[in-house]
């Protein structure tokens, strides 16, 4: 396919973007919408000491859970790790630092990072010791807020249903979840797409993530794990 922007790359190439100690953001919600091929590339790269940012810890062998379970992660910023008991075990052993952020706050912090903002103000978690700990408080128009810092990443990995060579992305039903937010918040954003279509094939009205946010696109290998419901 015509590759005028140089964004279409082979999956083998993405390993070059992974570094020890990097901050990596991933799309997905309980593994749904997490890019399976890019997770496998991350595993194959053997990078460690990672800081991961995403909605949850997946399941032990589903989604980002595969990376967490193998102990490659130093710190995880997520709203929930209950579906991945290995993550809980690593946390209790002191091998994994977990920063819990309420789900909506986390999504908005990632969105803010992608939109070039420094932080958001929210009253969610204001009276919760774990959420509010160490965070600045601010009064505005007579109401109190927590200052929740924006989140960005060295590398973002996302999953899309369709991509074109400019990186315009269309997602798939509930597999959209955090993907458009994560796509915008990466210094380098790599999208794994189920289908790569020529420029002009996507209706501009249907594009959810404009290609300006996307640096590289790889073809998807499809989901290679077994879901909990299967």
């Amino acid at each position, binding site marked *: 396919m015509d590759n005028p922007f140089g964004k279409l790359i082979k999956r083998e190439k993405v390993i070059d973007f992974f570094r020890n100690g990097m901050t990596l953001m991933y799309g997905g919600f309980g593994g749904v919408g997490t890019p399976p091929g890019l997770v496998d590339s991350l595993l194959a790269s053997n990078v460690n000491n990672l800081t991961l940012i995403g909605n949850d810890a997946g399941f032990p062998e589903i989604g980002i859970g595969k990376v967490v379970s193998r102990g490659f992660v130093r710190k995880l910023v997520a*709203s929930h790790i*209950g579906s991945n008991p290995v993550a809980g075990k690593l946390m209790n052993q002191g091998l994994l630092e977990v920063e819990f952020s309420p789900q*909506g706050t986390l999504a908005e912090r990632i969105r803010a990072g992608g939109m070039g903002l420094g932080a958001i103000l*929210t009253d*969610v978690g204001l*009276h919760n010791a774990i959420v509010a700990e160490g965070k600045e408080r601010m009064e505005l128009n007579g109401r109190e807020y927590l200052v929740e810092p924006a989140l960005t990443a060295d590398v973002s990995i996302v999953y899309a249903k369709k991509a074109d060579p400019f990186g315009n992305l269309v997602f798939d*039903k509930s*597999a*959209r979840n955090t993907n458009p937010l994560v796509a915008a918040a990466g210094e380098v954003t790599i999208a794994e797409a189920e289908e790569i279509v020529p420029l002009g094939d996507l209706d501009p009205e249907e594009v959810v993530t404009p290609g300006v946010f996307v640096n590289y696109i790889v073809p998807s290998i499809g989901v290679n794990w077994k879901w909990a419901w299967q």
Partner: protein
Amino acid sequence: MAKRAAAEITEGMVVNLGIGIPSLVPDHLEPGIRVMFQAENGIVGMGGTPPKGMEDENLCNAGGFPVETVPGTSYFDSALAFGMIRKGLIDLSILGSLQVSRSGDLANWIIPGKKVPGMGGAMELAGKAKKLIVLMNHIDRDGNPKILEKCSLPITAAGCVNMVITDRAVFSLMENELLLTEVFPPFSLDDIRNSTGCCFVTSKECKGL
């Protein structure tokens, strides 16, 4: 409990259901009632469970289980999903809980030193829905009451619970008063008193006594 909670859902509501017993509520809805179920992973218009073999791995509820959709469904990202929650556009949120206090505090996210799964979306769903119903067993596995004067576990959100439905009774919480409105057979008022960890007012119209 799920059946009793279903009776609180009225035509046209936007409803979010938590994982576990709350997810069984749609099975008990009156036929023909039109409700939009929101799933915080990015769906308004969630339907029931698809037949075996018809599941779509990219169409799941927040618990990760495949769902169907109803006419008028929309999909959106997590920021929008929680935007509509924070803005108070969810008419009714139904959640499970570990403890509830007399003043409506909800504790459902951690047991320090034992279970620390994270809050997920519970803080926003509990604190921001127009109405919050809690479904939980009346007592815990060790026989301790789960409705208390003050939660002993860290709270998820303060003063947010409007109604508690247990396997033994229904309480309404209004203006700092815990009001017993229904007792399920075979339990008596004394049973409820003995298994509730705080005082409460019995409604004049309390059912089941």
